């Protein structure tokens, strides 16, 4: 019998995976940012539950850090950016959403197989979610590959970091605090640089479409 808290975390893990799939198929930038914030919230709550059940106090801080950084600050920054860049209502033309989803399913199966030997070794209550964490990393990766615009690519990048964070919590109850703080700092600085970059790209190419940036290659 799986304890109630573990079931709860499993539920949140499933939500995380669903959101990853939703992001993969979402074409509107605004909804994409909201999905990203939701993913952060799910992550934060599941970290808190793990912390409460296992009495790992540093997980409270991780949960708080996730809440501030990924649910409040980054979505706020992204909302501000898309308003300033005037791409708030942009809809991306993506081809073949069904086949992207099929590739996504294959990736999930692959991730579960890869994670199986590791989660068997793990002693944490939520070890079974490691496969989900890996799957959401791979799905974010797929999202970055399929997108042709700068903002969704960045959201894919940030979602990948969410997946990695979840992997750390489910395999080991989180990394040491100093490392987590360092990673959070990197994400924060990275987000600012992304912001500066969007304006540079817009200034230079008059659009945030990556397809303008395919000139540098070997001939």
């Amino acid at each position, binding site marked *: 019998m799986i304890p109630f808290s573990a079931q709860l975390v499993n539920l949140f893990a499933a939500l995380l995976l669903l959101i990853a799939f939703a992001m993969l198929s979402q074409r509107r930038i605004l909804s994409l940012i909201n999905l990203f914030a939701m993913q952060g919230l799910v992550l934060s709550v599941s970290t808190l539950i793990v912390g409460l059940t296992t009495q790992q106090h540093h997980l409270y801080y991780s949960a708080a850090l996730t809440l501030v950084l990924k649910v409040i600050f980054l979505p706020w920054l992204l909302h501000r950016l898309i308003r300033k860049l005037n791409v708030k209502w942009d809809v991306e033309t993506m081809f073949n959403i069904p086949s992207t989803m099929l590739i996504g399913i294959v990736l999930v199966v692959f991730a579960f197989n890869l994670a199986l030997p590791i989660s068997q070794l793990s002693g944490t209550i939520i070890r079974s979610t490691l496969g989900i964490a*890996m799957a959401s990393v791979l799905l974010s990766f797929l999202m970055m590959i399929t997108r042709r615009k700068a903002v969704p690519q960045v959201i894919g990048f940030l979602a990948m970091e969410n997946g990695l964070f979840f992997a750390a919590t489910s395999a080991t109850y989180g990394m040491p605090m100093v*490392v987590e703080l360092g990673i959070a700092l*990197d994400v924060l600085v990275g987000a600012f640089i992304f912001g500066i970059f969007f304006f540079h790209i817009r200034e*230079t190419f008059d659009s945030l479409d990556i397809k303008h940036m395919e000139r540098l290659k070997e001939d």
Partner: protein
Amino acid sequence: MEIFAVLGIPLIGGILLALFGCRRWAPELNSAASFATFAASAALTAKVISDGPMLAWNEQFFVDPFNVFLVALTAFVGFTTSLFSRPYMRIEQHHGKLSINQLRLYYSMYQLFTFTMLLALLTNNMGILWVAMEAATLTTVLLVSLYRTPASIEAAWKYFILCGVGIAQALFGTILLYFAAEKVLGADGTALLWTHLDTVKDQLEPTVLSLAFVFLLVGYGTKVGLAPLHNWLPDAHAEGPTPISAVLSGLLLNVALYAVVRSKVLVDGALGTEFAGNLMMGFGLLSVVMAAFFLSRQKDIKRLFAYSSIEHMGLMTFAFGMGGPVATFAGLLHMTVHCLTKSAIFFAVGHASQKAGTQLIDGIRGLIKTTPTVGWGLALGSLAILGMPPFGVFASEFLILTTAMHTHPWATPFLLVALGVAFAAVFSKVQPMVFGETTEQRLPHPPALIPVFVHLGLVLMLGLYIPPYLADWYRQAAALIG
């Protein structure tokens, strides 16, 4: 306390330059901070040579013969590059390519970049190593796009996204490493300290560590520029300002390789097989061969030498992959001589393309007539990087090849063909640049090229004579790596 001086000076320098980078004396402050960092690293080196390895600040930092030699090298090349960049960036400003605020960004980020590399080298914590490597990307990405041309913005975006994704794989590798270590060392925060991991490496779970190493190698390997993950490297080197190309190529790639080698030591201890070494040899050999064949297709002089960096990083990865005292010694020597030679070449190339107003190989001709010192610097630097005796690159490549013949004879033909192709490609492109006909006038003022000749002089010395204490140091480091 030398460790804190080595880390503190560039950090404070970066903050000061962010505030005062617009002043006329900002370039001098930049050089002074780099010199102070170099002096502190020399003091640290002297201390480690006399007292042996040391730990500091709750074991969060540690110094052993392997990283202290890279710290000294990084601080030294950081200093000479700041000397080179002083007149170079001023001329760029006079040409109207850069505004005063862009220069402020440049000087501040230059110091912070040095800080992140030194932090990556000195930290004992594998997690902080990752944080510092990611921070090194973040500090340089705005420097690659410093000129704000479409090509430079594209290059910087590619650099950002590819290295960001790559390094995310390394984070997953680090998580797996922590997962394996936590079972042995407990979850009290010491489980990511390299010195602790090193003592218990034979108890770490082999299946987890082999998976972790794959992620770590792919992640940090992206930053090393290993094929097929190298796509960002030629663009970033070609489009950024030349001093940044010099430090990216000479220093950052070394630091990333350092991270791979540190991980390899742990994985080798846990697995007791050749798994990690074989993977590194495979990636290394692929990079050497791929880069050699791309060299002949280059039209841009900085791209040409960027591919040459991929080739040499591949050679080093191959050498560390082979393992054993001789190959590791050769790998360390090659790290040193490649770093010195490649940065010297970039200094000469920077001056040449600045004067010609183009980076295209066809646009630069007859350097020996217009600016003899730049011409000689480029000619000698290219000969050195191509492995001509008596330069130090010859010594290290010779050692790598002879070891490969002994232990992995199947790899030797690939290496020899690649080195031959690289020689033909680079030599045939550099030769007309230096000796070709030109209609341009000889320039009245010779450029300041002391760093170029200091570097080449050191490489020449390392080819002819390695001082006993230096050889001893390499041997100790090689013994650590195994």
